[in-house]
């Protein structure tokens, strides 16, 4: 027995020895490298999601989310917002006749006046928005119907707008500037706000139109061809969009707000995500620290009614809103945070119970083994 095993060993040893000697050079190249990666033995962190490990996470999330949610909710509730629909669908509304009679090809503007009362004073800066409903600014053909090169001041695009602008590309043989459906449907109602003092005098509230568009849009993305001076000459060979009253170089008297860099125009050109949307129209700056920006009381909104929406069953609104660090009034985020935080907390409790139960069960099972 001894001899046999000895022999076998010797044979084996000899054999493997010779194999490794003979094939050393050849074999080496073929032998897989003993690296951690190739042998799938990379050191690794192996977390396991068990009730025990997840529990603290749930509680932490709950504890963080609920205060955030409360904070958001309170902030949102402190924001004052006033909204008024001036479409004029109703017989009694001020703009009824305007809405009824107006169409794109009217040459004269229709004026109407809406009265409203602010119950509470608006303390900080007030932002004035116009809102449109059932207006599909996000329709695919609408969204792409623009020429960004033209709006960026590209001369060749000015004279030869992109095909995407069809059917608002050329008008009477001349290229339209700015071309496309978006520009063509520019919102052109003019809103004026008056504070009605107790004695009945209308006090016009100064509306600032600077800073309603993104800074980058105003300064980088939108540019007038050939600079801001002498726009009339630059736009000479172009035609105004079909629905516009005035050509693009007459949008404003201020050369810094005229042409493509008109802020109302830029705001309009940023297409909204949803069919009901609002866009920033004007800013009412807070004048003094003692006086509220908009004291409570009666107000008059003068509307130059240029923009027909009834044809597509749309609505127009004017919104006054203050702003906090988190933007406008939106209780959703706060509520969502509170809800999710509570759910997490609740789940944490449930898991704690499960964890506890399971733990005792498993130890109970272990003992007999």
């Amino acid at each position, binding site marked *: 027995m001894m001899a046999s095993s000895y022999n076998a060993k010797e044979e084996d040893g000899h054999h493997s020895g010779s194999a490794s000697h003979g094939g050393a050079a050849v074999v080496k190249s073929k032998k897989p490298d003993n690296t951690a990666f190739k042998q799938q033995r990379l050191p690794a962190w192996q977390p396991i999601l068990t009730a025990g490990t997840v529990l603290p996470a749930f509680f932490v999330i709950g504890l963080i989310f609920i205060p955030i949610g409360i904070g958001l909710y309170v902030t949102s509730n402190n924001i004052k917002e006033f909204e008024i629909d001036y479409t004029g669908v109703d017989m009694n509304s001020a703009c009824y006749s305007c809405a009824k009679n107006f169409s794109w090809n009217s040459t004269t503007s229709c004026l109407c006046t809406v009265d409203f009362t602010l119950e509470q004073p608006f303390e900080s800066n007030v932002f004035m928005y116009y809102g449109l409903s059932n207006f599909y600014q*996000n329709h695919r053909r609408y969204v792409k119907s623009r020429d960004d090169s033209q709006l960026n001041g590209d001369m060749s695009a000015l004279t030869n707008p992109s095909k995407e602008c069809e059917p608002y590309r050329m008008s009477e043989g001349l290229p339209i500037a700015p071309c496309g459906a978006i520009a063509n449907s520019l919102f052109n109602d003019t809103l004026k706000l008056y504070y009605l003092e107790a004695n009945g005098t209308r006090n016009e509230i100064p509306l600032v139109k600077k800073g309603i568009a993104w800074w980058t849009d105003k300064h980088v993305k939108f540019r007038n061809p050939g600079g801001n001076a002498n726009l009339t000459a630059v736009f000479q060979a172009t035609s105004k969009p079909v629905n516009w009253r005035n050509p693009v170089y007459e949008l404003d008297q201020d050369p810094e707000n005229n042409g493509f860099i008109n802020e109302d125009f830029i705001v309009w050109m940023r297409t909204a995500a949803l069919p009901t949307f609002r866009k920033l129209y004007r800013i009412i700056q807070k004048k003094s620290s003692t006086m509220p920006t908009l004291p409570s009381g009666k107000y008059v909104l003068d509307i130059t009614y240029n923009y027909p929406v009834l044809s597509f069953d749309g609505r127009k609104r004017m919104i006054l809103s203050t702003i906090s660090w988190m933007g406008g009034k939106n209780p959703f985020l706060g509520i*969502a945070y509170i809800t999710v935080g509570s759910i*997490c907390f609740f789940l944490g409790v449930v898991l704690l119970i499960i964890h506890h139960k399971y733990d005792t069960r498993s130890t109970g099972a272990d003992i007999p083994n």
Partner: protein
Amino acid sequence: MHPLLFLQCAGAENWVDNRTVYIGHKEPPPGAEAYIPQRYPDNRIVSSKYTFWNFVPKNLFEQFRRIANFYFLVIFLVQLIIDTPTSPITSGLPLFFVITVTAIKQGYEDWLRHKADCSINESPVDVVQQGKVVRTQSYKLRVGDVVVVREDETFPCDLIFLSSSRHDGTCYVTTTSLDGESSHKTYYAVPDTMAFRTEQEVGSLHATIECEQPQPDLYKSVYTCSPKIFVFLPSAVAVYTGWTPRWRFNYQSKSQKRSAVEKSMNAFLIVYLCILISKAVINTVLKYAWQWSPDRDEPWYNHRTEIEVIRAFTDFLAFMMQKFLGSYFITWDEEMYDEELGEGAQVNTSDLNEELGQVEYVFTDKTGTLTENNMEFIECCVDGNVYIPHAICNGQILSAEHEDLFFRALCLCHTVQVKEEETVDGIKRGIHQGKPTSFYISSSPDEVALVEGMKRLGYTYLGLKDNYMEILNKDDEIERFELLHVLNFDSVRRRMSVIVKSSSGEYLLFCKGADSSIFPRVVSGKLEQVKARVELNAVEGLRTLCVAYRSLSESEYVEACHHLTEAKLALQDREQRLAQAYDIIERDFVLLGATAVEDRLQEKAADTIESLHKAGMKVWVLTGDKMETAAATCYASKLFRRTTQILELTKKRTEEQSLHDVMFELNRTVLSNRSLKILIQQLSVDCLDFGLIIDGATLSAVLKPNADGSGHRNYREIFLEICRNCSAVLCCRMAPLQKAQIVKLIKASKEHPITLAIGDGANDVSMILEAHVGIGIMGKEGRQAARNSDYAIPKFKHLKKILLVHGHYYYIRIAELVQYFFYKNVCFIFPQFLYQFFCGFSQQPLYDTAYLTLYNISFTSLPILLYSLVEKHVTMETLKRDPSLYRDIAKNSLLRWPVFLYWTCLGVFDAVVFFFGAYFLFDNTTFTSNGQMFGNWTFGTLVFTVLVFTVTLKLALDTHHWTWINHFVIWGSLLFYVIFSLLWGGIIWPFLNYQRMYYVFMQMLSSGPAWLSIILLITVSLLPDVIKKVLCRAMPDSLTTSPNVTLTKN
């Protein structure tokens, strides 16, 4: 000299069934006989799939048979034709890339096949032409050529043996590549041409051969031979007549295999397709309904009709990459590297990695796969005393009275020949230590082992000289015995005998054979002790033989001679009469002892088979070997256990009873036991399991289509029924094609199990090709199997690792990949769908084009790709230690419909959260502190940001194995997304005709509520999955593949 080798006996009507071959192409003189030249295929081997010309169309066709590819193609074409929201490049580019990469890969693989074919086709062959030996290439051989094959050469085609250099016209041939038997078989030359010695003589031969058309059945066809046959003679001029087609017949054509995962993926894909198409239809209908209302007559609304096109899934690329790169881990595995061979595992097809985790049936070859194909004498037992070679030197020989006789019996009772040879064949090395110049050859490796064993015990057989057998005994004296008669071995008697006359004039009959055939004939001797020993050895899986003798008196000898010669001379029923004669002579034995020979199993073969069993796989052994040999191996390799009840379905049995009866009886046994088993299991006792043994002849009877169709179907069904209830099946005497038939049968059975075939020789190629997964062992018998397999491993034991570890890993990885892939696309597409309800069904894309294109290509592809390469839910050690873990993933369990549904629901939920979260946030308010408003692109970017983060973090939650790569890729890809977005929106890109994304991302990030909502939405989206995971783990009877017990252990 006869002009014809075989007389033409076939009538005109079966002309097609026979072929006439003219030796040396010497056609008969014109007019002598109506000669119709027949066309035969040439001897070229083609295993490659493509040629230079048909590569492009054929490969494209193959590729577009994949549903995914076809789907992309259709999308791409539709996008080309009509105006769509997204550019055709979005789906065309990835498709083109995928197709090109696949084509290059397949082309390269085929080129390798071409090269391999070429090396075989170009191999030199000597052909006799006009009396001279001419060297030519293998593929140029034609039917009728006379071929010279020298020792140790491979036959280039099927041949007929005309003559050899040996005087008796014999040659020794191994047929390993055909049936896996490596023993040497003696072939006899055709008697008419046996005398031919020189090329001239052969060249002058005018003859025709009448033979059958080639048949696939190895054992039926009269002349089918193999290419891999060694002539084992010194400078033999074995001349054969070549004809095609050869082993190619027993060969299956290569066709593309598809994994079960891919099939279920295709099913999922079809479901998605249906959903998406219905979505498109709904959208389109709604769109027109929307436009129908009279106030929607704005000119931009109704410009041109469009068909909504579904967003394509673009990351099949990750799928392909995973398979391609993943297969490297098999190649790189150090544990599967064999020092001796100098090679590691090879992957020939990367498409089947995950299938390795799904195997239910393992079909294995025996010789060379399970066993090392190397017999070794272990011990002998004389009258109950055990002798072990080497131990004998200790001088502890207990002088049993029959000892000398026993050793002599073993030295005499065999058909072994002694071969004197300088160069030593590698396989036989080490057996003969004393005299390196001679070794034994025989048709039975057992006999060689026995004689070798005797030599080590001191009795050396020197050979047969002038009919005297010479033995060098322990005391270095030469004993001579006159060989009088050899009563050859046959499988019915299961024994063989010799009658010799000793130098002292004694007549002795030595017999050795299976215990079952010897014991009944024994009259004296220590029966009990020997029997006990034999049984002990048999349990250990050793091949046992019993040795007995009978001393014959002069008169008895004469009588025996008389019987024998009479039987031998009989013209009719010679076989039967010989058997009768043997039966008369072989009786009244005195039992001498027993021997035990081991067909050494491959290293850890038994362990591997045990693991496979534990892993829930059924192991079948398919072999060309004899039943007894194979059964012994099966016992040794623990395929059959002691408790296994063996059911036999063999020719021997079916001869006694009709096949019908046997089948029904077996079926009854199995079924009755199954009900019993259920009973037993309830009592928690080790249950009986069955092992089935079936042989090739019976199998073909079972599978043969019967005249009455119902019966045939029945047999098949019953057979399958029996097999299903057997834990192990042994099929012996199998032709290569029969092996494939079995595999096919199981494949086609109603459960459609995943099959794996493993083998090492050319005879296994057909089953390797037939099975879902074919594994080749890089054995001694050439690379035929390895080349045709999907995976090649050096040793059988590596099967354990490749299945239990690699297969398992690949399966869970690919399962996650597939599910995740659908999940992330649902998350991606569903918000788009929801958005349509808010944009007048105009197919306005929610996300920017860059995001659309890059989402699947770069933002979310790398983490899942890396996950699917390195994920390990449990450690390798655990998988190896506990094979039953393999059952967790059996039957495609991670890709079933409920799982798919879960992922899809999760995707839909997340998508709803993304979209409506953003929707309510955007609802009619601003979320900047300067009062400015955001547009639709900010809305889309917000959704997209949440989407990318959620989808990536979901993967992070699924990752159990965080290596630095995972960290790098997951956090890296999120970082990449942020950097890309900053960059993409940071510049007015001059080449773009739109600047819609300009500063959008940065504006979004400058707003506090955007941050808050992103965090909130991600949390909400991930919450359900986290809860599900925790609950699954908390429930102890959960079916997750990773029991936390095993995990926490590391």
